[in-house]
């Protein structure tokens, strides 16, 4: 058995360590107003949607790419979902439409990036505007509500869709509001993606491509296909997040839904220790990265600090995280 290398542990689990430090600080400041189970459940629930989107962003960034379109894509996917449910009266068709739309949008980005060799930043910047503009155009800048058309209530029984996000389990004295289902989705998807990244050939190929695309190609890795697949998986995860959002609120808005999700997701990925240059990172890190952003938001709320300043603090944390990463990779080179 080797000696436990605490330095190595800190480097590999920086996201988790940061999160725990933040918990301690938050508890020190706010005591049990912060440190209670109901508040924790709230933090988890409030960050589920960005958390799931950030999982997709993690594999994209590990593969050496970036996705700026995911916020607009979430809006468009949620709108399509509710529109399909309203039109057909079938929740199942709505869910299928969501995944079809999400995976197709991933395919669109992936093919342009991989086969047409356009930089990911440009493709997804364009896609961000395309998806948002299509949403605004079809829904006329407004929104859509589950089971309604304009002001009238439709004669269909679709409100069951809302249970997808709003069902709560394990309600008890200790947990008066229970645990909302989406929290389980988030945790389950994180574990699934972690296994995929670590334990499958495709997962390892994603790291190989992000670390050294030329060498991966020369090792007969199907670089182009893998890249497209990465954007498709991320598209599927985005669709899942859009379903949670549409179901939770029972409505979507073409102008406001999903705005800035792409940046929050990227921030979570960076704080989670994933290298922007690709090749390194873990879904579990992103999970704690998302929670770190969530705790900061929550803490500032509880302290009564101006909510407009949340972004400033979160932005600073992102920059600090990257600085930390750079010093770590310098340290590793010196070994």
């Amino acid at each position, binding site marked *: 058995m080797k000696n436990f290398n605490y330095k190595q542990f800190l480097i590999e689990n920086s996201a988790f360590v940061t999160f725990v430090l933040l918990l301690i600080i938050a508890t020190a400041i706010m005591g049990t107003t912060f440190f209670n189970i109901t508040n924790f459940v709230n933090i988890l629930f409030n960050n589920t949607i960005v958390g799931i989107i950030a999982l997709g962003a993690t594999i994209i960034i590990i593969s050496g790419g970036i996705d700026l379109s995911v916020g607009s894509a979430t809006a468009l996917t949620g709108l399509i979902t509710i529109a399909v449910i309203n039109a057909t009266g079938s929740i199942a068709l709505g869910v299928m439409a969501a995944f079809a739309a999400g995976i197709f949008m991933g395919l669109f980005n992936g093919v342009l990036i991989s086969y047409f060799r356009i930089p990911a930043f440009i493709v997804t910047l364009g896609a961000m505007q395309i998806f948002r503009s299509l949403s605004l155009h079809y829904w006329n800048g407004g929104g859509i509500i589950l089971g309604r058309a304009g002001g009238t209530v439709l004669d269909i029984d679709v409100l069951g869709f809302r249970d997808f996000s709003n069902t709560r389990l394990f309600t008890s004295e200790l947990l008066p509001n229970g645990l909302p289902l989406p929290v389980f989705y988030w945790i389950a998807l994180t574990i699934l993606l972690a*296994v995929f990244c670590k*334990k*499958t*050939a*495709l997962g*390892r*190929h994603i*790291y*190989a491509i*992000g*670390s*050294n695309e*030329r*060498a*991966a*190609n*020369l*090792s*007969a*890795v*199907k670089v182009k296909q893998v890249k497209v697949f990465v954007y498709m998986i991320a598209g599927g995860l985005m669709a899942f997040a859009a379903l949670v959002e549409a179901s939770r609120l029972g409505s979507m808005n073409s102008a406001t839904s999903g705005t800035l999700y792409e940046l929050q997701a990227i921030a979570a990925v960076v704080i989670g220790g994933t290298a922007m240059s690709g*090749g*390194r990172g873990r879904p579990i890190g992103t999970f704690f990265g998302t929670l770190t952003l969530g705790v900061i938001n929550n803490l500032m709320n509880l302290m009564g600090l101006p909510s407009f300043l949340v972004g400033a603090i979160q932005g600073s944390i992102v920059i600090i995280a990257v600085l930390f990463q750079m010093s770590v990779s310098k340290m590793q080179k010196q070994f």
Partner: protein
Amino acid sequence: MFAVEMKGIKKSFSANYVLKDVNFTVEKGSIHALLGENGAGKSTLMNILGNILHKDDGQILVYGESFDDKKIAFIHQELSLVNDLNIFENLYLGKELKKGFLLDKKTMSHRASEVLGRMGVDINPYTMVSELNPSYKQITEIARALLKEAQVIIMDEPTTSLTEVETELIFNVMRTLRDQGISLIFISHKLNEVLEVCDSYTILRDGEVVATGKVSEELTEKDLSTHMVGEEVNTEGIYKTRELGEVILEIKNMSKEREYKNVNLNLRKGEVLGVTGLLGDGRTELFASVYGANPPYEGKVIIEGKEVKMRGTHTAMTNKIAYVPKNRKENGIIADLNIKENLALSVLSKIQSFGILKNSTLEKLTNDYVKKLDIKAGDTNNLITSLSGGNQQKIVLAKALCSNPSVVILDNPTQGVDVGAKMEIYRQIISLSEQGYSFIILSNEVPELQRTCDRVYVMFQGEIRQEFNREEMTEENIMLISTGGKL
């Protein structure tokens, strides 16, 4: 007084000693050859002199005074000129002369002409660098060194991509500068050139000086090469005569614009085939195409009698062709993956059950190759970057082998590998060829080809010029053909 005096220089990278107590001196106004096989420590020593690397220990004197890198200019093999600027703009890049806010083109071009004239070269300083032939690009680099008033100029294999006429031009420039009191250090593998142009020489082997002296009438290429290779390395008994099988790979009329033209060759089962030439001969591009990494191409790749269109590297793998690229760091290893994953990268998707990687199979595969290729790996869960260069190269070789190929293309397979590990890799190649693997070795090291190959093709400017069998593949023959000459 010496122009350069390096005493007791030591340098190590992690645990590897690259220079062990090296003494190196260059007389004022002389051309001094620095010789040695790849990995002997030449570049490291010169990088220390050029102030690119720092020595661990030792002393450097330049003109009897303490080390001053302003007096030293290092002209690298990869020239650092900007093609889209003209000669004098390149010479003054970053230190342009100005008249007020504007560039003083008149003075700059005038001084550039002066410097060029000092070398005995008559060329308009307004000529774009992109229009210059390789020898004039070298000359522009030398002019830049003179302009910064360097007293010592290090030239790293300046003649590799030059024709005989161009080489002669560079030599004349070198002699002219020497007569003006400038000292030149000439790094080269071409021993005939050393005898022709140099006044003195130093030979490095495994980080130590093994010989140094004056170039005289009696000195022969053989004297030099004996020192470079060294006697203690047992090179005998690596090559073995073997029964060769049917033709397994054929290349017919392959061409690609600006890279290679009209190439025909064949490879038999169990054969080790060498392909050599100088920089710019097109062999790397040719075999990248054969491996599917450089599409599209004209002509045919025929594997076991059937034409295969090589559109991607995966096509090559399914047709049992494997590839070890040159430049291990850029093309060979994945720095963020561990040793096991690097080794099995090409076959990861074949060692899954129910979509999950089987760690036991991965371990077994790794341990097999670690044993087979005698890789010093320690814990294979560590990152590949924890290994020494030679062992990394063996992992890259193992990666190619574990896809179970019938043809393995090796581009510069012993780059940055020390002599001992080199011999081991050669032995592995021969022993694998006895088991029916066929190899194509792309290399510019003739001894490497002589130790392993059954036949050698020599390329010049994208064309195969000559095929040699074992008896004919001498250093002289290969050098002659690869510089464009005829037998």
